[in-house]
């Protein structure tokens, strides 16, 4: 362990720390008040020592802890790629029923959220993904194209595909508020007699409708789609 307590942290590192705090909260190691408090301190942390102190009493969640996130140089955003190859690896859940290309898209987005990927990082080369997962190259291309459509990545001819934006930041208080609302909904659903699977089914159906409605309005100028309303 080297002494880097005094080094300044970047926004990305603060965000990553908040994400880890959220995981600890979800695991039940922190209660709501503690979570809100620590997230606030994470947002305003200045040095690595500040951030590390927030995790002093929390065990590893399996994600790399803050000091191990290899950031180039002084740690400011926009630094170039960290070296040859991509920081992330894809995996494939063949039994999940989710189309392969969507799994790749989600993994990139998830990696962005958790800080495995940052601005300027390179996505794995198509060839390497094909070689390690044994999937059709067009699937990878499709996923990368989707990410490009979403504005998250950009291809540089001859070099590869690079992250050019991060996911839209939801302010952490807002995140906390959403979580509270969700808990309220869950309580209501439980009171109405839905069991856990029922809640999941209802949520999934509503999510699909929402997605269809939103992508319908985005690509076809608002064609009518199914109007199955979820009942809350």
């Amino acid at each position, binding site marked *: 362990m080297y002494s880097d307590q005094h080094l300044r942290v970047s926004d990305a590192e603060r965000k990553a720390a908040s994400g880890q705090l959220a995981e600890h909260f979800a695991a039940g190691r922190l209660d709501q008040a503690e979570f809100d408090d620590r997230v606030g301190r994470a947002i305003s942390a200045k040095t690595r020592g500040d951030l590390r102190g927030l995790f002093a009493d929390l065990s590893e969640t399996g994600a790399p802890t803050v000091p191990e996130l290899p950031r180039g140089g002084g740690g400011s955003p926009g630094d170039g790629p960290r070296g040859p190859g991509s920081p992330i690896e894809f995996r*494939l859940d063949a039994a999940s029923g989710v189309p392969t290309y969507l799994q790749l898209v989600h993994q990139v987005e998830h990696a962005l959220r958790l800080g495995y990927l940052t601005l300027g990082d390179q996505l794995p080369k198509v*060839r390497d993904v094909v070689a390690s*997962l*044994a999937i*059709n190259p*067009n699937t990878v291309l499709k996923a990368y194209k989707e990410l490009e459509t979403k504005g998250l990545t950009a291809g540089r001819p001859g070099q590869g595909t690079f992250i050019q934006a991060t996911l839209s930041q939801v302010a952490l208080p807002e995140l906390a508020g959403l979580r509270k609302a969700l808990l309220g909904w869950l309580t209501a659903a439980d009171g109405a007699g839905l069991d856990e699977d029922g809640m999941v089914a209802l949520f999934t159906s509503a999510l699909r409708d929402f997605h269809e409605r939103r992508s319908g309005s985005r690509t076809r100028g608002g064609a*009518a*789609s*199914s109007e199955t309303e979820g009942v809350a």
Partner: protein
Amino acid sequence: MNMNVVEASGLGKRYGGTWALRECTLAIPAGHVAALVGPNGAGKTTLLNLAVGLAEPSAGAVTVLGGRPAGSPAALDGIAFVAQDTPLYKNLSVADMLHVTRNLNRRFDQPYAQARLAELGIPLNRRAGKLSGGQQAQLALTLALARRPRLLLLDEPVAMLDPVARHDFMALMLTAAVDDGVSVLLSSHVLTELERVADYLILLSRGRVQVAGEVDDLLASHRVLTGPAAEAGRYAERPVVHVRRGETQAHLLVRADADDPVPPGWEAYPVGLEELALAYLREPGAVALPGPVRGQALPLDTGEPSEVTR
């Protein structure tokens, strides 16, 4: 490249009195990994044999790589074939197999072959018959790819391989597709392993082509409608492919675009490749071919459960 790597028109093959393949019309575009799927005896091996010139058609014709007659020297030069059970000369060493293949072809990338074999850990001085099944398959594939073909044809290449060997085989094949733009046509009677790998599907059943098209298009143009069994008859005019119904609930696999309205009271679900293939296989009259839609109106109102699902 806009050519078709395999084109067949009215292709048929008869053995004795039985037609193994009939009225087969295909146009597989280049740049794809095409899966040839069907039950055993559907005619997959026959089609592949015709395409590589190992059999003569009884009817119709087949050409490869933009019009080269199957089996002609020009065709053989541009394609490579790995038959079922990956035939190799078992008494020859791996190095000898490389030598033989090099001598029998105009193009052979010896450094590539040796590099791939080294990566795979296949020793050059071992007899081909002493390799494991997976290694033999990899060797056959490496020999085929080292010929630098434009089209690679494989007949049930992974049927006898364990999952790891299967994965490695597909990875080798797909990286060649990426690196060198090789188009692939491979056959299998197991669909699940092809879903990740293929982006063009040809479904053969009883010697006829039932489905042919890009996987994305096929999945986008089909959906499952789930709703009350009593109302299932309402959709007799739609191109319904297959019906599964219980007493109260029915699932219809229909041809519809994503923006076709879903009838009220019904739910629409996307279809997976295996479900699609099984549905077509169970309905011999249904076809999904590029061109005019030839779906079939099914007698839905028999009042009897056709596939009871409780």
